[in-house]
């Protein structure tokens, strides 16, 4: 059982709760591998995708997960809603709830928005990414993928590479992987790694080859082009020279290391095509596992509400 009616972040979960989600997802992973991919578990429930930021993959993944659990799904996207007419966030969310939503999947550019709604609404709020805070289902699907490939977290060295400071994926993964007992390293230019972050129980490296030494898992993050415009690094070329995951850099990791990326990838910037499409890459498996994880989260939250 999950303690809360909502999934706001990994920060709020215990290791046991994370493991419960992973175990539950394993069952759904089998379901979605079948020819008939749907179960009636949540028939009659309503899911609303409330996305205030553009997203294709996460929204689609949640939509599929909700449909495979037999809930009715509505996509409430910003440009077509009354938000553009100046409606407040709370009013929009209250309206969605009044329409009968049991699950509200929310993505917003401001950190803490799922928490704000959680206090105001009875529906289960699932955080699909809030500002630079968290993206919990991404971290759960990453943990699921790692566990499938590597088993026990306690002996693993995992490197997260790139723009840590602005990445909600990195934040959720730091919480999840440290709670599960893995050793987490962060790699990137000092301008993209917050000071004090070691206090979360991670190691920080700036030279990629040093950080990748003997790691079991490499998680690459998307580099957003606007970071260069804002001066976090001088040029894309220099970023590539120092922090792009190439085959050569990959060789510093363990031989059987896996390479992950939450997508969408900037090929040739944070990762070369050779690595992205290579034998170590599990990037597409992450996508498939994402549906199973999101089904598990909805299923468990539905139980915690009774």
């Amino acid at each position, binding site marked *: 059982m999950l303690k809360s009616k909502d999934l706001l972040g990994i920060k709020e979960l215990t290791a046991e709760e994370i493991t419960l989600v992973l175990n539950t997802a394993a069952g759904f992973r089998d379901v979605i591998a079948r020819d008939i991919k749907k179960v009636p578990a949540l028939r009659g429930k309503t899911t609303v995708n409330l996305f205030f930021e553009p997203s294709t993959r996460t929204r689609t993944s949640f939509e599929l997960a909700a449909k495979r659990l037999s809930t009715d799904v509505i996509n409430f996207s910003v440009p077509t809603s009354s938000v553009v007419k100046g409606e*407040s966030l709370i009013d929009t969310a209250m309206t969605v709830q009044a329409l009968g939503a049991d699950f509200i999947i929310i993505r*917003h550019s401001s*950190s*803490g928005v799922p928490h*704000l709604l959680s206090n105001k609404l009875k529906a289960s709020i699932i955080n699909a990414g809030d500002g630079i*805070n*968290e993206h919990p289902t991404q971290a759960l699907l990453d943990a699921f993928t790692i566990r499938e490939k590597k088993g026990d977290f306690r002996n693993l060295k995992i490197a997260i590479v790139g723009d840590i400071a602005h990445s909600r994926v990195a934040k959720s993964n730091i919480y999840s992987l440290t709670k599960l007992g893995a050793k987490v390293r962060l790699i990137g230019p000092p301008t993209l790694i917050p000071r004090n972050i070691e206090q979360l129980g991670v190691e920080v490296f700036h030279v990629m080859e040093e950080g990748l030494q003997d790691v079991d898992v490499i998680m690459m993050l998307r580099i957003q082009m606007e970071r260069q415009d804002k001066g976090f690094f001088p040029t894309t070329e220099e970023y590539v020279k120092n922090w792009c995951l190439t085959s050569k850099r990959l060789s510093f990791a363990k031989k059987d290391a896996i390479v992950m990326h939450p997508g969408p990838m900037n090929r040739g910037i944070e990762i070369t095509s050779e690595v992205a499409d290579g034998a170590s890459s599990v990037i597409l498996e992450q996508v498939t596992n994402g549906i199973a994880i999101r089904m598990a989260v909805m299923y468990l939250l539905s139980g915690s509400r009774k």
Partner: protein
Amino acid sequence: MKILIKDGHILDPSQNIDCRGDIIIEDLKIQEIILKPGEQHQRHKENIRADKIIDANRHLVIPGLIDMHVHLREPGFEYKETIKTGTFAAIKGGFTAVCCMPNTNPVNDHESVTEFIIRKSKQEGFCTVYPVGAITKGQKGEELAEIGTMKNEGCVAFSDDGRPVMNSTVMKRALEYSKTFNVPIISHSEDLTLSEGGVMNEGLLSVKLGLRGIPPEAEQIMIFRDILLAESTGGGLHIAHVSTAGSVKLIREAKKRGVNITAETCPHYFSITEDAVEGYNTNAKVNPPLRTFHDIEAIKEGLADGTIDVIATDHAPHHVDEKLNPFDSAPFGISGLETALGLCLKLVQEGVLTKKALIEKMTVNPAKILGLNGGNIKTGSLANIVIIDESKEYKVKAEDFVSKGKNTPFDGWTLRGLPICTIYKGIIYEW
């Protein structure tokens, strides 16, 4: 009408009065102060005739407090606060004079706006309002506003509060130019290039909450710049809302060198840390941001050793809907007038400040910095007096604020020491 305040503990740091006594008020003015040393807790037997007798036995009787940093929001943002509601909140909090910052709409960068504020406050206000004029036209930080003309109209200081003057040359000129008119320049010290996008203190907690940080350096760099400019120009500089340990240190060192500066902090900077932001509490979103325990300690030291001259509220009322926005987009500010005195008295209860030192920072010190009459209890002057029940414990209830701004991180706190009576120009407000 003749009013007698009987048997109170009169404390007026400006005249070194710290003694039991009576005050007689007639025709809006203080007619007589009868000090009764040596009569601790004995009822005075003589009978003074008066129309109204206020029994102040066991209560503290002090000059009406002066808050040199508030936002009254009028003109332009009357849905947040008006001169009427803001000055009533002041009276309730024990203040009989407030200085209102110029970031209204239109900005108080012209004598006509100054005139409007003063006229409106005389018509509708409950206490005295001293406007603070903008340093630059439109608070844009580019061209100086008509400081001389606005001073003649009633502005007592100049500040672009809410925004810094980023251009150092403009700030230098303001400090030079204002000398002619003998008015202080109040610095809202914030390097916008460092604070850009920030919504709380930069540190581990901002990382954990995924909120963008405002580093202490954003404040300190500008304080240091303005100290250097004040030093070279000899202009009068007052540093607003000091929030960091580093700022206290810079100001202390400058004062030691003899630079002509003064400084203020606000109750929230010595009462709560950034932890109040946890749970994305927009009522704890304030600029400069709430800092750490280490900063609180340094600010208390700065208050105790006189580095920080004044406690002001930076009363910044907002509409409840605005504070219901996501943390990033909610406005900065705390509604402070009605909790200030209780939070400040904690400094006395904790032994950080003597009662006299505290009252000094809320009466005579701001009066001196701004060249105001008041902040004292003197025979012949206007009767602006506050009576405080120091032992009264009460629970802060934001919904009961008379200010339109209910935005406080102190809702539900228990405080000790409450103004039970504020007398402004002979008018009695009892609570």
